[in-house]
């Protein structure tokens, strides 16, 4: 059983770093790399060997009605692969970037805790256990946002912690209501018990979950913490937060709850459509006026999350396919964009687009990868962003929602406009720069090049023949709403 190792390995690494590494930063780096690489290998191995099966692992040998179970299916393995891939490149980027901030080993220990929390949320099959892992990830994220020890970072972290605390309270109330009405906390068990309940109560519970996890996913009415937290954090952490944290804690849980547990209630699917399209438009409008590069990218995260929610709200297989594909693509290109911003900030010490200017010849690799990511996020063909947005738009038209398709297209055009601004002022502008005294090293370039190549390669996910083995199993898990219960109980009993 490989399932518990996704939680155990990073947790072990976090404590080993704190215990053994002491003042030796190289040990901390080596340990965290080892843990992340093994998780990546395990998730790839799991994805290849899984044959449309759901495995459950009963923790401490207690079976489902009593104990907590971990569930492994295509969706969770897909998320695990995405998380570990971004974590690995983020670690590559951190080695040079974090060196000038503060003590390294604390950073790596917190990073591993963040990874533990996210992996835990993804593998667990128990509602309260999910809450606990979510808090582990969040507390690590609060600390990491404040890691640079500047006033604005403390401010952003405080704001994030208050918003996080509020959403956790809402989620806990929803969990309490769920437990009192179904007498179980296992997700599959709740899914089984819900149809027999008063449907008004179920709708209230679902609404509380939507508010709580919508806050974590930073969809538009709940987005206020995101631009501060994501733009103030150190660059590798911004990429972790924007790339995977809002998806693992927000989108993934929403998918699990609203599809596998609540069985896609039409009212909430319509709500997701509205939230999604409002997020797309407002996010991109707020982004287009920004001059702080990282803040601009943070607002684009809101807009891109809107696309994912839109695809989920359509509730057709094609819409879900688009949402899952865009989930992966957004993790790749948004992380890459944050690395670019981080490299520029490290070299020039500024994030202001007006002060950046002529960087294309100074930082050729950064400029190149940033161009790839910009084209990808704006949806220009051969890059992955084009295909996922195309699928979403086609799905919206097929499902009979041409208005939402129109919003998606308009949002995509405005995204293109705002990234043309980034390229024009940020990398091909007029301001000349002297040769800086610090340059991005090999590992930073490696992190950026890996993701740039994946930006191109992941377009292949959609090619028939590859799609059957990558995206389709994930869509099946989401779409076979009731199947999940049978699978979990079938293995455990």
């Amino acid at each position: 059983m490989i399932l518990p190792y996704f939680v155990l390995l990073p947790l072990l690494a976090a404590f080993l770093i704190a215990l053994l590494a002491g003042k030796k930063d190289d040990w901390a780096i080596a340990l965290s790399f080892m843990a992340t690489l093994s998780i990546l290998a395990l998730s790839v191995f799991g994805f290849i060997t899984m044959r449309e099966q759901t495995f459950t692992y009963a923790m401490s040998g207690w079976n489902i009605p009593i104990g907590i179970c971990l569930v492994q299916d295509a969706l969770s393995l897909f998320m695990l692969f995405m998380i570990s891939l971004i974590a690995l490149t983020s670690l590559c980027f951190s080695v040079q970037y974090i060196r000038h901030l503060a003590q390294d080993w604390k950073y790596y220990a917190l990073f591993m805790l963040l990874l533990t929390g996210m992996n835990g949320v993804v593998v667990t099959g128990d509602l309260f256990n999910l809450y606990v892992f979510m808090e582990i990830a969040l507390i690590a994220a609060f600390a990491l946002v404040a890691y640079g020890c500047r006033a604005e970072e403390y401010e952003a972290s405080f704001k994030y912690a208050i918003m996080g605390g509020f959403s956790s309270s809402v989620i806990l109330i929803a969990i309490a209501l769920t437990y009192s009405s179904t007498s179980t906390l296992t997700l599959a068990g709740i899914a089984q018990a819900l149809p027999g309940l008063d449907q008004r109560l179920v709708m209230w519970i679902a609404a509380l979950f939507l508010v709580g996890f919508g806050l974590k996913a930073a969809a538009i009415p709940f987005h206020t913490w995101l631009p501060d937290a994501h733009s103030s954090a150190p660059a590798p952490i911004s990429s972790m937060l924007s790339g995977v944290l809002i998806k693992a804690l927000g989108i993934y849980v929403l998918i699990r709850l609203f599809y596998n547990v609540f069985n896609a209630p039409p009212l909430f699917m319509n709500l997701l459509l509205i939230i999604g399209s409002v997020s797309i438009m407002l996010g991109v409008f707020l982004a287009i006026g920004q001059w702080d590069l990282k803040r601009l990218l943070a607002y684009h995260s809101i807009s891109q999350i809107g696309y994912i929610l839109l695809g989920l709200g359509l509730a057709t297989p094609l819409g879900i396919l688009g949402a899952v594909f865009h989930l992966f693509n957004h993790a790749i290109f948004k992380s890459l964009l944050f690395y670019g911003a981080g490299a520029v900030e490290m070299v020039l010490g500024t994030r202001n687009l007006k002060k950046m200017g002529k960087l294309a010849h100074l930082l050729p690799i950064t400029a190149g990868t940033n161009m790839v990511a910009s084209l990808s996020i704006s949806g220009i063909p051969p890059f992955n962003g084009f295909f996922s947005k195309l699928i979403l738009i086609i799905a919206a038209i097929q499902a009979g929602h041409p208005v939402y398709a129109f919003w998606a297209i308009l949002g995509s055009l405005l995204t293109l406009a705002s990234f043309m601004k980034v390229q024009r002022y940020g990398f091909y502008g007029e301001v000349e720069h002297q040769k800086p005294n610090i340059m991005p090293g090999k590992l930073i370039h490696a992190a950026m090049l890996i993701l740039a190549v994946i930006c191109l390669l992941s377009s292949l996910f959609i090619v028939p023949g590859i799609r059957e083995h990558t995206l389709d199993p994930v869509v099946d898990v989401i779409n076979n709403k009731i199947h999940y219960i049978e699978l979990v109980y079938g293995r455990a009993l």
Partner: protein
Amino acid sequence: MILYLMCFALFLVGLYGLLTKRDLIKIILSSAIMGYSTNLFLVLFGYRRDATYAILTPNNSGQAMVDPLPQALVLTSIVIELGITALLVALAIRLYQKYGTFDITKMRSLKG
């Protein structure tokens, strides 16, 4: 029923403080009050009238027992809240060192 309503009122007190107070410490306290009300809400669901504690002894066999699971959950949740409150207080101290005030309206490096 009245207990649940009072618990909800406690939640609203916390929410009101969170939204209207400008002092960092008062915001932290409001956040904590909100957390307490949530915990109270959770543990109330395990309560049964005239029931005993959930440990089986020769004296109380056959009697109704309270539900022990919410109690275990609340313990976990209290520990988590303690961690978050400690982190918030640490951040408040650092913010005071940077700005020389606890007034949140005077902290304005982030906007837009």
